[in-house]
């Protein structure tokens, strides 16, 4: 949020105030994200309660293995993200860049696997809407499950794409030497954001893939 790397923007008195403001801003933003996903979770819970069998049937159409791999991949990406922040604190330019690239790679793998899953669903006519076909007496309610599946994982994937965009921006900034031991707030903020997105998936995975499955 500052005009020049490492400098204190004119509206702040000192670097500390600037850092604290950025931190509070990020936490507040994450709060709004929490409310957004909260809305989806409430809807999901209400419908799961109304149609438990359909939701179990729906979740049995998901690929637990791919979801599981993705969970692992995301946890790895959180680790490398944390390392990137650590390197930033130590002011090590190369370390930041390597860890960010790793994080981007993990994120990319996640999105790739997600894309494969989506394409399977398209192939199996499990995308809600006029093309939805499922040979089941409760196909209508299973379709509801998939509406939530796509709405929630889609929103999540969209957040990841934004996160990757932010990391690419960070890499460029890091290359130009913008960060040092004193000033690394952007890396830290993007780190917070990325961890949040990971945590959302940690909730999504059991809720969509695992719960009640046989």
């Amino acid at each position, binding site marked *: 949020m500052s005009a020049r790397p490492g400098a204190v923007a004119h509206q702040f008195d000192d670097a500390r105030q600037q850092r604290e403001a950025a931190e509070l801003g990020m936490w507040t933003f994450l709060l709004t994200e929490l409310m957004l996903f909260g809305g989806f979770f409430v809807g999901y819970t209400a419908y799961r309660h109304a149609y438990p069998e359909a939701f179990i049937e729906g979740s049995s159409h998901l690929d637990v293995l791919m979801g599981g791999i993705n969970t692992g991949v995301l946890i790895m990406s959180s680790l490398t993200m944390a390392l990137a922040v650590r390197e930033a604190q130590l002011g090590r330019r190369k370390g930041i860049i390597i860890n960010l690239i790793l994080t981007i790679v993990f994120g990319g793998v996640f999105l790739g696997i997600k894309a494969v899953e989506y394409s399977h669903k398209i192939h199996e006519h499990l995308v*809600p*809407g006029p093309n939805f076909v499922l040979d089941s007496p409760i196909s209508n309610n299973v379709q509801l499950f998939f509406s939530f599946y796509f709405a929630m994982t889609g929103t999540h994937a969209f957040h990841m794409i934004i996160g990757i965009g932010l990391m690419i921006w960070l890499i460029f900034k890091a290359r130009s030497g913008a960060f040092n031991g004193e000033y690394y707030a952007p890396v830290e903020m993007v780190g917070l954001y990325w961890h949040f997105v990971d945590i959302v998936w940690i909730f999504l995975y059991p809720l969509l893939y695992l719960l009640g499955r046989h």
Partner: protein
Amino acid sequence: MSALTGEDAPPQAPRQHYLNVTYGVRSWLLTLDHKRIGLLYLASITVFFLLGGMFAVMIRAELVTPAGDLLQAETYNKMFTMHGLVMVFFFLIPSIPAALGNFLIPLMIGARDLAFPRLNLLSWYVFIVGGLFTLFAVVQGGVDTGWTFYTPYSSTYSNSAVAATAVGVFITGFSSVLTGLNFIVTIHKMRAPGLTWFRLPLFVWAHYATSLIMVLGTPVLTAAVVLVALEHLLGIGIFDPKLGGDPVLFQHLFWFYSHPAVYIMILPSMGVVSEVISCFSRKRIFGYKVIAFSSLAIAVLGFLVWGHHMFVSGQSVYAGMIFSFLSFFVAIPSAIKVFNWTATLYKGSISYDTPMMYAMGFIGLFTIGGLTGLFLASLAVDVHVHDTYFVVAHFHYIMVGGALMGYMAAIHFWWPKISGRMYPEGWGRFSALVIFIGFNLTFFPQFILGYLGMPRRYHAYPDEFQVLNVMSTAGATILGVGYLIPLIYLIWSMRYGPRAGSNPWKAKGLEWETTSPPPTENFLTTPLVTEEAYAYAAPDVEEQEGARVG
């Protein structure tokens, strides 16, 4: 203006201030100065207000006669939908916070700017893009779902531009979130030395509460309108009972945001009234802490009462009783505020300048609006008046009688600070009176209409409701004129009004200690705060008056 007379030399404008520091369209569209961004908002919401007002004119004109003869039913439905959408999302929600809050909060807390100036500019652009999407929906033929987007009508049955409008509301939501976030961080981290929480002006407290609602509520609305748009475009079934979806779930999500959104509209006005009442009675506000905390109480309670919009929606009797019970609690902090404002007048030194006229009008109309809310919170009566003109009258007393009166008070009160010039006081008082009369004539008959049973959103109605509807339309005409007068004289005063000086009202508060208009960086030296807000009785008023001339 009376405050200007005296032995002071005629006030001069500072040589350089935020308005003349740079010129040209670019310098405005790329500005990071919160004051200029505030003015960008001010201009945009004025345009939306006029637009929303035009829709209202069409509605009231149609309702002069019982038969639906002026507009076609479809057109009429689009008119009230657009009126609601534009007024709520593009005027009332951004009105005081985004325009005046933006301008004033840094000044009031002695900061050079908001914490995140770029985010602030971004939020204005987001707002404009959202607005353009909505206008695009109008050009596409309009939308006819009502501003509430109730499913499954909006998602499955309406053939109008639902998706474009939903996207517009969705985008605008981001603007609101960004503004709220910016305010929260700014109020937490950017206060001048010595400015503790309990020295903050109540305007700032009110905006803090408002920002909390913006940050916590808006995302849920976002989720809801995204689902409506998806359902409308793709038929994914979440709100479609044919696929097992529940249309009432939408109502829950929608009102979880939109009830607190009412407080987004009214809380900033309450903040304004606290400032104005105190200034024009020259008295410390009565019960400062109670007013401050009641703002927070309203914001928190506001999130617990959404179900009172759904007493007849088929929700369980017990849910209805719980929501009714909680709704009554909101009445208490609101009542406390009214009593404290009234008590502030006691033994004050009251002048009748335009802002004060509006503020007193606010207290009266808000009292009526709040008390009629009790009718709607009590279950048995709500069953009868729900979705009738009683509800329409009630929320216009809150949103127009309350929020808009507060907005008008604020515009007049801080106009000298914003523009550096005074508005014509006589015209100001006159138009305040016209608005007060016009408002009551418009909306009071609607309470009676509602209890008689006239449902809202009716294009045609039974004959026996005509007299009251004609009264309402007559009032609306007066009200419309009342709003045009300030628009004209305020624009006039930007060029021809007399110079205001830094503190024409002899008001307290940091924003009055800098020049009018303020310099880009607000204060030449960071102010040091040593006293509480509203220290009108303190002996140093005169000294400050002397100091600011130099």
